């Protein structure tokens, strides 16, 4: 017991000592907390997000005349871990803003704690519609929201003859984004006369590796279309397994709520051809800014530029510009500056709505297919079929 008390007193002392200098350290650079999943099922997406933010920070260089310092933490896609890491970033590392975050669960958990954290939190990937006007310090920049994707998808389906007159089987990942995406799509599809096979859509656990049961079920239903809302990495996995069972060969079309990850698509090869989906960007988007960005990204990371990287890049740029515009690192000032800010980047001019803190941008309908000759050596790409302007997609500003 004596030993214990002595040792634990020692431990407490040691911990206090090790903390003290950090707490007192004055930050010369502007610290930005980057929360991305580096382990867990979406780790690859997390790496691409990190790339996008790093690239933005490097290109931006300084804000308020001070260097930008990114401090990256792994959320493990676990909300409690993310909250702890956010506290660490804000309190220990003195970060002035948080950026990143994959998965609605993590995003909403952080939003819950944003009052305590008291820094602006800008998510580049959380798609849930709950984010509209959620909190004065919570922003979305980069990714389309669920309602925007759903509108894009429905518009896309109606616009394509080979998608229009099909019955769709809806299968989603079992978490809030998946549910949200599924419900939005079904509601809109019904309004627009698109046939849905299962209005009480199927929910698959995020950890599902073997999709054969679901595929059997789809086969048994006799539908000729599938609407899927999966985490990006999983889309090629599902497509490949569906191809194994010959679904695509039998004429079933896949429509996805999210854009498939490029590396996974490469890995999936031919099996990943023919996935339709509304997104906001693909390297097939042809505008000079986008093309230049792609090449810079490729030079820097030697990996195929993905929409995940673009979202993060655009989001980070918005954040840095807002800090510059705010003229200080005060949370409220940055938040005020973020509202209504616009940025001219790889996907044209986008702006964060002053009304609900969420970004508005155009959507494209893409289909994955064999890639033309390209500098990235990609074999599969998302070909842009249609473009839908922002004001037709989401809620009016």
């Amino acid at each position, binding site marked *: 017991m004596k030993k214990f008390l002595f040792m634990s007193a020692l431990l407490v002392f040691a911990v*206090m000592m090790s903390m003290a200098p950090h707490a007192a350290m004055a930050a010369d650079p502007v610290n930005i907390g980057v929360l991305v999943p580096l382990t867990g099922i979406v780790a690859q997406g997390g790496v691409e997000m990190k790339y996008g933010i790093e690239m933005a920070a490097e290109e931006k260089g300084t804000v308020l005349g001070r260097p930008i310092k990114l401090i990256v933490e792994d959320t493990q896609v676990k909300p409690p871990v993310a909250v702890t890491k956010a506290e660490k970033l804000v309190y220990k590392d003195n970060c002035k803003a948080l950026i990143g975050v994959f998965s609605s669960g993590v995003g909403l958990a952080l939003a819950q704690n944003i009052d305590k954290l008291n820094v602006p939190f800008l998510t580049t990937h959380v798609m849930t519609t709950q984010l509209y006007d959620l909190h004065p310090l919570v922003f979305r920049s980069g990714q389309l929201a669920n309602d925007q994707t759903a509108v894009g998808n429905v518009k896309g389906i109606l616009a394509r003859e080979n998608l229009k007159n099909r019955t769709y089987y809806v299968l989603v990942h079992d978490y809030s984004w998946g549910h949200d995406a599924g419900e939005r799509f079904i509601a809109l599809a019904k309004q627009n006369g698109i046939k849905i096979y299962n209005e009480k859509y199927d*929910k698959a656990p995020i950890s599902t590796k073997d999709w054969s049961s679901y595929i059997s079920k789809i086969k048994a239903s006799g539908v000729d279309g599938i609407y899927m809302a999966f985490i990006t990495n999983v889309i090629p996995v599902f497509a490949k397994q569906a191809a194994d069972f010959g679904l695509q060969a039998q004429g079933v079309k896949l429509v996805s709520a999210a854009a498939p990850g490029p590396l996974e698509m490469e890995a999936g090869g031919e099996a990943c051809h023919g996935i339709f989906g509304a997104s906001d960007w693909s390297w097939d988007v042809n505008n000079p800014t986008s093309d230049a960005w792609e090449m810079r990204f490729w030079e820097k990371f030697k990996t195929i530029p993905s929409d995940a990287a673009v979202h993060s890049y655009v989001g980070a740029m918005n954040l840095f510009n807002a800090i510059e515009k705010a003229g200080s690192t005060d949370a409220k000032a940055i938040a005020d500056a973020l509202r209504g800010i616009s940025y001219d980047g790889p996907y044209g001019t986008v702006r964060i709505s002053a009304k609900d803190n969420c970004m508005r941008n155009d959507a494209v309908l893409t289909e994955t297919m064999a890639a033309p000759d390209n500098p990235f050596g990609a074999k599969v790409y998302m070909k842009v079929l249609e473009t839908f302007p922002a004001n037709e997609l989401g809620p009016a500003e």
Partner: protein
Amino acid sequence: MDKHLTIPDNDKGITAYKIAAITVLIAGLALFPFVITNRFYISLINEMLIYGLLAMSLDVLLGYTGLLSFMHNAYLGISAYVVGLFLIHISPSSLWLALVAGVIFTSVVALPVGWVQVRTGGLAFALLTLAFGMMFHTIVWKWYGLTGGDDGLMGVPNPAITIFGWKIGDSGDPATMYLFTLVIVALCYLLTRRIIRSPFGAVLEAIRENEERAAFIGINVRMYKLFGWMLACMLAGVAGALFILYKGYIGPTTMSAFAGAGVLMMVLLGGLGTLWGPLVGAAIFIYIQDYISTMTEHWEIYLGMVVVLLVLFLPTGFVGLGSYFKRLGKE
């Protein structure tokens, strides 16, 4: 019989030295948020305290009763969900009522589970804790409408901390919540310490030492195992209530098998069969995990390595370190 005033057992009683030491330690911890105002460290220590309580309750089971539970975190989770749901749906301000509801509900769930588990033997008991734990995990994960499924339970209100109607502070404030946690954990520690040193604790120890012999001196082994299990689960329930109040959030990953193994590791890091060992073990575990995961994205490699090396070279845990140095000194 005056000649036997001293009793030769492990209970050395409370000495002035111990009282002083414990007071200093608790006072030190209580002063912490005033010295280091950085919320991150307050949160970190808070988490250490909560997991320390959970690890301590697992040690009541493993170290004192000799029963291994793979997923003690499940009972923390159940209580956290109940407290959270209580605060959301029933009464957003009744802190104590919510706490009591959490512990009671956890006990109500743990009772039949424990009843089934104690009917089996040692390893089967351990495996059943895994089966039931996984079941709770899956239920929580799947019951989207109630628990928020994979997203977890969010929007838990922060009730005011009151005693007899007298408001002390707000549970949303980290420093207040930290002090509240400290008080509850310290109370639980002292209470558990007293229970472990009671005649009842002696029975648990006897079961751990030699289950068969315990039965042959007239102990109803199954019944006392069940009592030990219930005590452990109720303490886990308290930890769960503190967890949700402090985090404002609970998700199914907190109840996963891998998180459960983490709790087991805290106990072993600290050392079995002492109440304070697991508290220290939890602190070390959380600190290491936090430290390593900040250092590198490949933190799993290093965490795994630390665990492997610890088990290989320091199997008695932190507690054993003392006697190790003592031995070293003698040689």
